[in-house]
């Protein structure tokens, strides 16, 4: 009689060698394909910027607190790394702005605008810009220093015709370090959350030298427009408006309805 065809069911202890060799080949093929696949996928990635988020490391910064147009702490230049701006934008814990926290602190301790304070938080920085996350919320305030009130530097008008400039609206917390990538389609929903949560929207564009320029977006009268621009975030857009330089940051005053999506 002919030899019976090998048959195997998983509950049997021993596998016939025909099955074993087929399965083995299948597994070996997969184990060869995987590293090749991993390499191609990783090699072709766009890559990530070198922005930093010092997660788990707490930093104390002392400087003048400016509550508007957006919360910024003006630190001594000598206290900052030389390649970083000494005007540190303040943001909240998670996907929230710093305003709520600062208002809560002020409700307890009185007005802090223009005063010298020491704040504790987590540093976020990249491309010359610095951001401080008030990780401990209202416990982020360490000291209010009692000394003279310093005058605020006058606004500098940058340009009055910021006309149809092309760029992308990002949330500065993620973009300057918390997330990789912190821009573009993948990050869109997070940026929407952050800006909806009160983190100032930042318009990222390129200047003639092909360097990045950043503008904090506000309404034409300086009001917050976070809610009005949610559907324009993380897209290629063109923006027109009036610009100003204040407290170490560029501001762009716009009518949110004039932001144009650019089809690619």
């Amino acid at each position, binding site marked *: 009689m*002919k030899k019976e065809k090998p048959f195997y069911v*998983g*509950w049997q202890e021993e596998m016939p060698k025909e099955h074993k060799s087929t399965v083995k080949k299948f597994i070996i093929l997969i184990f060869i394909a995987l590293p090749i696949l991993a390499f191609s996928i990783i090699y072709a*990635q766009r890559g*990530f910027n070198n922005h930093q988020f010092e997660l788990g490391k707490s930093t104390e910064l002392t400087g003048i607190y400016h509550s508007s147009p957006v919360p910024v702490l003006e630190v001594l230049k000598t206290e900052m790394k030389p390649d970083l701006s000494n005007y540190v934008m303040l943001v909240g814990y998670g*996907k929230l702005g710093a305003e709520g926290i600062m208002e809560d602190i002020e409700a307890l301790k009185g007005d802090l605008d223009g005063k010298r304070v020491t704040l504790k938080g987590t540093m976020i920085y990249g491309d010359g810009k610095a951001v401080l996350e008030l990780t401990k919320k209202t416990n982020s305030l360490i000291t209010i220093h009692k000394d003279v009130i310093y005058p605020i530097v006058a606004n500098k008008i940058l340009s009055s015709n910021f006309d149809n400039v092309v760029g992308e609206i990002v949330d500065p917390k993620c973009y300057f370090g918390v997330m990789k990538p912190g821009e*573009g389609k993948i990050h869109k929903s997070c940026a929407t959350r952050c800006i909806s949560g009160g983190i100032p929207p930042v318009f990222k564009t390129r200047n003639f030298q092909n360097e990045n320029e950043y503008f904090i977006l506000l309404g034409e009268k300086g009001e917050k427009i976070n809610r009005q621009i949610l559907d324009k975030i993380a897209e290629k857009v063109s923006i027109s408006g009036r610009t100003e330089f204040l407290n170490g940051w560029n501001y762009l005053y716009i009518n949110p309805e004039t932001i144009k999506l650019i089809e690619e």
Partner: protein
Amino acid sequence: MSLNYTAVGWNKQKKQYVKILWLGILAFLIVFAALQFLLHPNISVETLIIRWSAITAFILLHIILVIGPLCRLNDRYLPLLYNRRHLGVSMFLIAAIHGVFGTIQFHALGDVNPIVSIFTSNQNYLEISNFPFQILGFCALIIFFLMAISSHDFWLKNLSPKFWKAMHMLVYVAYGLIILHVATGALQYETHLIYWIILIAGFLLVASLHIVSGIKERGNLRKTYQLQEEGFYEVCSLSDLEENCGKSVFINAENIAIFKYNGKVSAVNNICKHQMGPIGEGKIIDDCITCPWHGYQYMPENGQSPPPFKEELSTYNVRLLKDKIWVNPSPLPEGTLVKAAKIDI
């Protein structure tokens, strides 16, 4: 078979299966992380975890989907099928890492509930390149979750095999959702051509194996048999059947498995009561027809599972005329005893 909700039995093969599976998953993690840190040292750990788990789960999903048709084409792949539920559950666990990390990273600690945020943070349903891709991933993860928690035979039994099978066919829906999740999500940011090539090649592999195995199956179904007297059809010669082996025939919309064993021929329904496996491709072990997929057993003459199990298949009347096998395709009630046709030597 009648199962209480007990832990699955572990034999040597199953242990090895799970060992190789997790060894592979771990090895891939190490290779993936090493290459990322080497080629992209600025990557964040969160992004590393999100991408590793996404890609690992997606690869496992492809492996899961090709095993079925491979087994239809060549029964030597069957050992891969037997423990496939471990692949499925592992895939779900890793996809869940991706989904949970993605949800935390992109939606948590904000001004609305993270799950609500998945559905509301992007509402460009009409644009392909801006489509809210995370919703697609979320729906697929729910499907994988339902499949994973119902993967035990306890649920198979309680949900009825038909319902269970229908639910597990949702894996194809989930696969489609994931392809769209990747195409409208990651690939709108990571735009290198190689990603499209990999995505499409994976899809073509899965699709073509299903088509080829489907054509093979159809070939069997297409065969027509000449009607003969008293409702019996001539299906094949005795010599077409190997000892202790079966053959599947499709007559008048009845899917029938014929077995030759111990000088006898019997016919039972070809659809296993477990997960509708092809009984006719099984074999007689310990005097029982044994399903090739997971080894459910049935006695050839009455279609009943040996006690204490309670599964029953329909049986069919069989006749032998010289060396030709004749079958009556009207099914008898499940578990009906039919005297096997004796082979005269």
